[in-house]
Every structure is written in C-alpha cells, then in structure tokens.
C-alpha cells in the first residue's frame, strides 16, 4: 500500500529544506537506502534516503520548493497503485491525522543522527498544518512584523519563513490592475513608488539603472561549444559564503614556514606503532590540528568570532577543517578539539571527512567553528591566501613540505625539510603583530611536537 514519505528533520535547527534535485522520477523503483532526492538546508546539501522499498508514485514538491521538515514530500508504493486519493488538490499535508498514522519517516544517511530526531516527528507539522512554522513565528516576532500574512506558501497555506521574509522585504504593492492580471510578481515595479503595474507582471524586475540586463554571452564572445550549469547546492552555499567573506572582512595573509623534521618523525613513529593502539592512521594533518587546538587557548583573540559591534572569544576550540568533496568544499567542525587526545581527534577528523564525502554529514556539524584549518600541502601548494570562514577571525592554510638549503656551521650546504604556513586573519578583529606572534609560536611547536604534546 502506498505510503507518504516525510522529510526528515536534518539537524536540530533545521525547520525546512529546499529540494535541489530529485534523484528518482515517478515510476522509478526505490530500494531501501537509495537517495530519493537531494535537499539543501541553510548549511549543507544532504541526500534523503528511502527507508522503505517500492516505486515512487508521486512527488509532492518540485525542485527549489521549500519543504518544511516532518511533512510528507513523496509517495512510495507499488507500481500502478492509484494514489489520487492521497493527493489533495494543493495541500500535501492537509490531513493531519493521516500524517500521524501513515507517515513513514525516512532516515538520512547517518542512522544514529536520524534516529535521535525522528521520534519527535509529528510535533510541528501534524498538529497545525495551516499554522505558522516556529522559525517563521520567531522571525516575525523578532523583526516586529505587524500582523502575519493572510496565508503562507507552505503546505496547506502554512506560513513559512519565506512568507515572513517577503512580507518584511517591503515588496512593492501591486496595483489593482496588476493583481487582476496575475502572473509572476517582480519585486520592483515600474509604477508610482515602485508599484507593480499590470505590464510588469510576469516580467523581469525593472532595472533601476535602466541598463539592459546582462544576458547570455553572445556566441561571438565565446566561440565554440558552451555548457552551463545552474549554481545550486553546495556550490551555491560556497559561492555565497566566499563572496560574503571577502566582501565583509579585511583579510590579511601572513606566510611563514616551520621545520618539518619533527612532524615527519612523529608521523613515522605512529605509523610504525603497534596496531593495538589504533594510532597508525594519525596523519601529519592530525598533528597540525592537534597542535593548533592546543595553542589556540593561549591566543583567545585568534579563537574568536567577529560580529561588527562585538567580538566573541571562546574558551574552547571548535576546530573546522576544509574537506574537498565531489560536490564541493565542506567545512565540518570538531567540537572541543582542545580537549581531545591526538588519537580521538584523528578519529573524529576521519569520521567527519568521510561523512562529508559521502553526503551523510549532519548539517549541525557544519557550523559553530571558532577557527579553521585548510590543507593544500598534498597538492604541492607552496603558499596561498585562505579565505576566512566568517564570522571566524582566522584560518590557517597548510602548505607542502619542501627541501630547503641551509648553510652548515662548516660553510657547506645541507638540506632541511620545511613546511609553509599561510595564516589569514581578519584585520578588523586581529592586528598583524598578534597574528604573527601566533604564527611564530605555532612554527615553534610544529618544529618541536614534543612541546605541543606537553601543553
């Protein structure tokens, strides 16, 4: 019998998700654990996997739709089954009782994380499908919005965050004729006070500058075949974050290097250690992260976030690290990294990186960092300018290990292994000298890991 699949709660703070891509089409058969669709939270994109097998009979939302969590978003059953009775005209979740009795929660890729959040499933969605989402209510009250919109764009007319946002946006009012004309509403019209006129409906927003909107480049500018891809999912998030970071901070990168012999010999020792201790997988990167996490509590101004009128310093280190995934850059965060032993930090790093790569990362683990490390050393990069993961105030870039000639006391030449470090600081919050002091101490510790181990 056909069953509704509800959107899982993909993290404690996630109220709704946007469907980025349907992985299955209506009529496709679905196995347990297979991805039905890819969704985007405000922090990451995640695959939603099926917990029951069957055939996808109906999609209740389209790509780019904002779907509140714990609301049915698809119907799965046997091929050819009639689901028309389950499809209300425009309200996928209008029947609250059915939602509670028949809804089958699907698990996302991390069973442990999903299990902890699914039990409280019916709360927000079930009781009042035509009400207002908690996030929308919070936004409405915190922003002092006078009165709620008459109806929302969520299922069953439920008011969701974007309804409040558009109410707050001060969208230009429509003239009576424009309302009657219908069509898509531009945010800005060409009438008096920016009112949307009938002629504006269903058209692109009027350019205030009066300049032509930039269209696709003409073939003459870029001869040859061109492929274009929509910017969405992780790419969209990264694009937004990176642009915001460079636009809103005053970034300054300091470059230095450290002797790598200590790192290399410690790494070799762990690798050769007895299997029973579980230390064989400790990497140079783990050692660097461990050292940074131990040093940061001594530099509270580096372990901080900048909020314009306020700087917050943190007693503990929540260490983010950049992970290259097939879908783009992700930055998971190791909580209380300063409290972890090297082996636990190493294990946690591997767990988070793996979850990022296979798309099963819990979005809650992708935020809340106080400092970030990004390592391009394995690509032979000698120096770069890491982009700060705002609102953090610093990011450490780790470069390749290279051979460096030094003069011996005897006047000859010998080779030393050195590793480059590129520290970007937000000069709004941290000055150059404190940044340089931190980098100097870090170089010292990395050059002598036994010191870091004792901190």
């Amino acid at each position: 019998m056909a069953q509704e699949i509800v959107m899982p709660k993909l993290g404690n703070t996630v109220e709704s998700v946007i469907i980025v891509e349907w992985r299955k089409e209506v009529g496709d058969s679905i196995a347990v654990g297979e991805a039905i669709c890819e969704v985007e939270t405000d922090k990451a994109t995640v695959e939603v996997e099926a917990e029951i097998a069957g055939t996808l009979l109906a999609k209740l939302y389209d790509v780019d739709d904002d779907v509140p969590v714990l609301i049915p978003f698809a119907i799965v059953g046997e091929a050819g089954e009639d689901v028309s009775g389950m499809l209300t005209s425009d309200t996928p979740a209008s029947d609250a009782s059915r939602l509670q009795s028949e809804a089958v929660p699907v698990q996302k890729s991390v069973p442990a994380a999903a299990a902890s959040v699914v039990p409280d499933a019916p709360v927000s969605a079930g009781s009042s499908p035509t009400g207002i989402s908690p996030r929308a209510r919070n936004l409405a009250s915190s922003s002092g919005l006078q009165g709620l919109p008459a109806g929302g764009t969520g299922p069953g007319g439920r008011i969701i965050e974007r309804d409040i946002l558009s109410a707050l946006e001060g969208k230009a009012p429509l003239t009576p004729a424009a309302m009657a004309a219908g069509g898509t509403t531009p945010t800005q019209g060409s009438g008096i006070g920016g009112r949307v006129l009938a002629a504006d409906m269903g058209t692109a927003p009027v350019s205030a500058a009066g300049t032509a909107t930039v269209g696709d480049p003409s073939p003459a500018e870029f001869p040859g075949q061109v492929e274009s891809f929509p910017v969405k999912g992780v790419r969209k998030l990264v694009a937004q974050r990176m642009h915001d970071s460079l636009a809103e901070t005053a970034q300054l990168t300091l470059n230095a290097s450290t002797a790598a012999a200590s790192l290399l010999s410690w790494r070799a020792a762990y690798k050769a250690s007895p299997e029973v201790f579980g230390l064989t997988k400790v990497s140079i990167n783990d050692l660097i992260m461990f050292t940074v996490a131990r040093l940061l509590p001594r530099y509270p101004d580096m372990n901080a976030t900048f909020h314009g009128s306020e700087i917050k310093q943190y007693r503990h280190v929540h260490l983010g690290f950049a992970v290259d995934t097939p879908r783009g850059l992700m930055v998971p965060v190791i909580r209380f990294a300063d409290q972890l032993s090297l082996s636990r930090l190493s294990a946690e790093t591997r767990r988070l990186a793996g979850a990022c790569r296979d798309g099963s990362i819990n979005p809650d683990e992708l935020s809340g960092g106080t400092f970030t490390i990004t390592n391009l050393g394995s690509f032979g990069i000698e120096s770069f300018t890491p982009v700060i993961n705002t609102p953090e105030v610093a990011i450490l870039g780790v470069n390749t290990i290279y051979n460096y000639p030094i003069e011996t006391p005897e006047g000859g030449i010998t080779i030393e292994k050195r590793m480059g470090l590129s520290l970007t600081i937000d000069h709004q919050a941290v000055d150059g000298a404190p940044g340089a002091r931190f980098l100097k101490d870090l170089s010292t510790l990395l050059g002598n890991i036994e010191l870091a181990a004792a901190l």
Partner: protein
Amino acid sequence: MNNEFDLIIVGGGPGGYNAAERAGHAGLKTLVVEKEVLGGVCLNRGCIPTKTLLAAAKHFHIAKDSAAFGVDAVDVTMDWSKASKRKVKTVRALVSGVKTKLKKNNVTVIQGEASFISASVVEVNGESYSAVKILIATGSKPFIPPIPGADSPAVLTSREILEIDHIPESLVVIGGGVIGLEFASLFSTLGSKVTIIEMLPEIVPSLDTDVAALLRQRLDKSVSFKLGARVEKIDGNTVSFSDSEGPGSISGEVILMSVGRRPVTGGMGLEDIGLNINRGAVVVDEHMRTNLPGVWAAGDCTGKSLLAHSAYRMGEVAVAGMLGKKDRMRYNAIPSVVYSLPEAAGVGLTEADAAKSGREVVVKKLPMQYSGRYLAEYGQEPGFGKIIVDAESKVLLGVHLVGGLCSEIIWGAAAMIEAEFRVDDIKEVIFPHPTVSEIIRETIWEF
C-alpha cells in the same frame, strides 16, 4: 568662493529650481545658474502671470454677467494697468519665495549665462565652476516660424504680450494651442475682437477632440476661428492665410505668434562636450540621464513634455537618480490643463490616442449638470466629464473634463491612472458632496 559643487543646475525654472531644492535638502552642495530671473518662464512669463491676468478677466466677467444670479452690477470697468501691477506683485512674491526656499536648502544661485567647458565644468561670467553632477534645465522659448513678415513690430510672442500696456482693440492669434487659447480667452473676455488662425482642422490638438470642440463652441461667441488655415505672410498688422475657401486676410492691432515652443540648447557648448541632442532637444532616458555620465536633463529642454509640472517631476527623477534612489519618469499620467474661461483639463489617453494605438476602449460621457454643485454655480453652461477605460481590464486610461474649476480636480484622476485603478476600484472612492469632482463618480457608474 569655492567653485566646487556636488551639483550644478543650469537653468532656474521649474525643472531647475525645484530640483535644486530637493538636492539641497538631501545635502548636495548645489549651484543654480540662471541667466535671467529665478522661476523661469513659468513664474515670470508664463503660468503665473497669465493666471493672474485670467483671474482679473474672470472677475470682470462675473461682475458684468451675473444677472442670472440676481446680481446686477452697473458701470463695470477694467483697469488693465492695475491688473498688470497685481500680476507683477504676484510674480515678485513667488520669485522671492523660490529664493527663500533655495536659501533655506543651502543652494547657491548665480546670475549669468553658463557655457559648458566639459561634462563637469561650467563657466559663468568668466569664472569656472565644477561638479561631478550636472543638471541641464535650460527650458524653451517661443518658436517663430519662417513666415515672411514675422518680424513685423505688430507680432508679439507670449513673452511680449504679457507686458502690453493696454487691452488691444483687436488680436489675431496664430496657433490655436493652449497658449493661444488662453490669451484669446483673456482678451476676448476683456472686450478685444479676437481671431484664432489654426493650421489643423481643430484647436488644441493635444486635447481630446470632444474637449477641443466644446471649448471652441464656448469661445465661439466672442472669438472667430479660422481652422485648417495656413498663414502665408504678415504685412504690418495684416495676416494673410489660405484655407479651403481660398486666400483670406485678417488684421489686428496685435498679432500673437503662438505656434509652439522649442527647447533652448544652443550656444552653451553643449554640442562640444559631446551631449546627444536630437532636433534641438537633449536626449534623455527614463531616469533623465543623458548620454554623458554625470549629466542629467529635465524640463522643456528635453522636448518631452513642455509643462512646468512635468519639469518639476523630471527634475525630481534626476535628483533621485543622483542620490541612488530608484525612480523613473512616466508620461502616461501627466495632466494637461487649459486655463481658459471655461477651463478644460485632461489626463491620460484621449479617444483619438486609443484609436491610434488600436487599443479597445469603452468611453462614457456625462454633462457637468449631473453635479449638483456645478448646476448651482454654473447653471446650464455646457461642460462634461468623459472617461475612457480599457475594454477588457476596465483599467482607467483617460479622464477629460470641461467646465468649472476642473484644473483643481484632475490630479485625482492622474493618481488613479498611476495606481491603475479599474472601474470597480474607482466606485469605492468617496467624493465630497456636493462638488464638481462628483462628475467623475457619476460617469464611472455609467460603466
């Protein structure tokens, strides 16, 4: 004196002084360059002086012709010099008002002719002034067509006729547009023998044809019309023309040349700085920007809509653009008014416009007597309200009125057109009773 400004406005007429006020208020360090008197043609030689004189004519008419109201005045006379003095006083008061407002908004005003050195430097009286933003608001002047004898001393333009020291015994008006009509109305009311010669088959071609026809009919008692007549030459006080009946001529003590106005854009170096000028008018976009970055234009010099209230709005659109605000000039709801006796006022599409654009419309028209107030004050004097709406959407497209103080009403119709009101929306508007404005309400219920 520091010669660097945020904004230099060339021209102190409605396009210029109003923009200066807005810019100054917004904190821009603003300079206005005016070659004659602040206020421009509107205040000094157009709107205001004509309205002052027309008010005199109206009082004269009411004093003389109010027997129907039970008022019998005897020996009603007109003292033209007194009316002219009142005109000068009114203009002076308004010019000083403009000066005060500009001063209040920290606008600097200098008198002199501006010549453009570059798109950011203007020379006045041998001194250079610079600004990153320039607003050209140089206005317009009466057009003298190349008719033989047009330089006859009897030929005056609106500018000179306003300074005339007596009521001419007879007046020939060449050009039956708004300006010609107002002077014809003025002097015919005061007893001049007036003839209007118009090249087109109907007067005031910019107005709805019903409006023009009724105005002509109302004025017909005191004004003769020669329509479809082409002026061939002027010989002293005699104007020779030819119409469908062949050649003719007519003489008048004064000949008013009122065939139109032309933008003033020459002789200031505007062409030399690379400004795009088309047929004498500064080319602007809907944000009043010219082809030169940092250079805007507003008012008659753009040739778009030669009306003071259009100039006000254009100047405001330009200043909004300078301040980075979104605004655009719309031309579909600019009211046009003829301050003749009776008045006519219209806004939006005329029936002829609609026919030309192929738009399907529905038109309703009611006599002004549907308004109780009109009947009480004007009795059976002909007048009407005419409303044009889109046939399909029922959106208001045009409102045209003749009679009463309809110039004071028409803004409401303009607002409704701007807001794209439909017939049913207007039906919800409450009009004060009893007023002449109710003719709009009465007519809308005809739909």
